[in-house]
């Protein structure tokens, strides 16, 4: 199978579209927003040429896109959609409803800055805004990872212990529009991996009619939410198992995080998504100069794999977290907060500082990342947690 991999030149969006085609979902809801548009445009071509069985529903807003996904998924079948930025913000209430109704919808989010001012470029403000929604969240470094994650997401969301929707994030423009070499699978391999959809409590079952979305008073809402907590807990081992199965199929072993040269590192940067690629480049350069630096890439953000992160970062002296979104008024960005919280109980915990970067698609380059490593390397003793802004003019 690995030998049969077909390399194709695909942007992140086209990789997502091609993966969607191979999944051949029952329903796809589509509403355009930059930088998602080319994914749905490509999928529309597949649809128009009769290459999928999918019902393509070109809805009139993102809110309706997720609403249609909820109706379709509840009816009982595979559902995929995609959005970005203000589109995700518009469907916010339904995003929560999709997770609360335990519907295994898969959604690609081409991470883009939230308005205002309107900015169409990549940062994580959109998906971070949904981190409490109950969706499983993956942050994908490149087109290959996006392509592969679509299949894993399908399996993970539909798993009977999980039954949660999955957000497949990729950096807007940086990953969504960059052409890369993607090793693709055969259609049959994909279908075998994802398996047939097994409906659970579908609306279309008239023998066992079901009611979705009732009114919970104060006597039951908490219990229903507790069930979602349990599903997230159960998701972590399922995700690891599915990743392992996928690795057997494709030769690409993703796991839930990537520990790059961390074993003997003195200093490390924690980051997500495409910036992990740049950071690895910097790590390689600095390692060739004898500097003991490493990188932890967080691939799975929800459920937050605290134990695995603790294991990866233990023994590191100084850590810088790179956050591609701000939580205004908070003590640091979202990733910083979660990492620092996870490390709090560790006896020999590293010093952890935060760098907010890349907002509105502001470029981050190797020189800047090396500057962060240099700071970590030159710091001695205790580094109080501080929040820095990397790449903004005026600081």
């Amino acid at each position, binding site marked *: 199978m690995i030998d049969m991999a077909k390399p194709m030149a695909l942007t992140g969006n086209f990789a997502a579209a091609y993966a969607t085609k191979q999944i051949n979902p029952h329903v796809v809801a589509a509403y355009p927003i930059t930088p998602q548009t080319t994914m749905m445009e490509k999928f529309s071509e597949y649809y128009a040429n009769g290459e999928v069985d999918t019902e393509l529903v070109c809805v*009139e807003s993102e809110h309706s896109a997720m609403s249609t996904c909820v109706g379709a998924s509840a009816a009982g079948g595979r559902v995929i959609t995609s959005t970005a930025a203000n589109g995700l913000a518009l469907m916010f209430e339904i995003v929560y409803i999709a997770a609360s109704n335990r519907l295994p919808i898969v959604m690609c989010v081409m991470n883009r800055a939230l308005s205002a001012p309107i900015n169409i470029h990549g940062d994580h403000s959109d998906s971070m805004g949904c981190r409490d929604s109950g969706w499983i969240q993956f942050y994908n470094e490149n087109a290959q990872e996006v392509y592969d994650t679509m299949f894993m997401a399908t399996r993970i969301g539909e798993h009977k212990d999980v039954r949660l929707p999955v957000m497949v994030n990729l950096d807007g423009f940086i990953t969504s529009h960059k052409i890369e070499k993607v090793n693709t699978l055969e259609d049959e391999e994909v279908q075998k991996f994802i398996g047939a959809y097994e409906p659970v409590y579908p609306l279309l079952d008239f023998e066992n009619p079901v009611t979705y979305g009732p009114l919970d008073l104060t006597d*039951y809402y908490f219990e229903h939410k507790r069930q979602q907590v349990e599903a997230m807990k159960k998701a972590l081992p399922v995700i690891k198992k599915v990743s392992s199965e996928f690795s057997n199929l494709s030769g690409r072993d993703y796991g839930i995080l990537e520990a790059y040269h961390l074993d003997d590192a003195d200093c490390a940067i924690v980051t997500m998504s495409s910036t992990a690629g740049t950071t690895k480049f910097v790590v390689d350069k600095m390692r060739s100069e004898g500097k003991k630096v490493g990188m932890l890439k967080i691939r799975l953000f929800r459920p937050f794999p605290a134990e695995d992160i603790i294991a990866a970062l233990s023994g590191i002296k100084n850590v810088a977290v790179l956050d591609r979104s701000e939580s205004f008024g908070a003590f640091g960005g979202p990733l910083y907060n979660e990492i620092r919280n996870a490390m709090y109980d560790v006896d020999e915990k590293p010093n952890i500082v935060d760098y907010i970067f890349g907002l509105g698609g502001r470029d981050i380059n190797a020189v800047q990342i090396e500057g962060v490593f240099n700071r970590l390397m030159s710091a001695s003793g205790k580094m109080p947690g501080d929040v820095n802004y990397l790449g903004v003019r005026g600081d």
Partner: protein
Amino acid sequence: MANLKQLTEREERLTGGHRLCAGCGASIIVRQILLATDYPVVVSCATGCLEVSTTIYPYTAWKNPFIHNAFENSAATISGAEAMFKAHKNTGEIPQDKKVKFIAFGGDGGTYDIGIQSLSGALERGHDFMYVCYNNEAYMNTGIQRSSATPRGAATTTSPAGKVVPGKKQYPKDLTEVIAGHHLPYICQVSPGYYMDLIKKTEKAMEIEGPKFMNAFSPCPRGWRHASNASIDVAKLAVDCCFWPIYEIENDQYALTGQSKLIASGKKEKLPVADYLKSQGRFKHLFAPGNEEILKGIQGEVDRRWEKLMKLSGY
């Protein structure tokens, strides 16, 4: 068309035990619709009186598959269910000849106002479903606040009958006419007071493929301030005064039906709208001295819209 006695042999899909008010028009409408067809039905419902009162966890009064999603997206939700059904036919998982009907319910709040976008989108896309608005002319579930369907002069909690502003300032939106602009295969206005007309229209709609819209007049004893036993009377009176004509638009052809048809052809008397307004406490203040112009305005607007409708229907 099935007669009432034949309908009594059908399964009741909205059971007793729901917690809508005594005399609620909405449950009468839903019962009449679900009895008028014996196809399997998937129902989506917007947040509102109907949804909240029929599905208080752990109870559901629906014996058919039911989904509540949010307030403004009943039409988008049913679009998804309908698309899934079609997709299952594409894949062969469901046989081509299997018939399932998709009905989306929404109150006037969830249809005229916040839901109008998703309704318009679903209709334009041509999904095979029927949208039923149970129009009780205000946001009743949250405490009788005005909507764009609230009539002129009606007292609601956000358009109270005050000393300076006596009730709602605007005339109600004519959503049925807005929907007419979508050029659907079937659009109609019904009243549960004229139940045979409502049932006939439902049967007809269920045999038509494509997007359909039904605007159903839904008296609310609590919000309109009338006795709980008067709901059917009020539902009839609105038609008799031509305040809520019953008609259908089939592929752009307008046709008055039932009582409205009889009024237009002169066989039944058109009652003054004041008779209708007097039947409900929400209009009581309009009969106080000083509000005569408002009453005149209401009659004038009813007449104006009725004239237009008669003309469109060929009278």
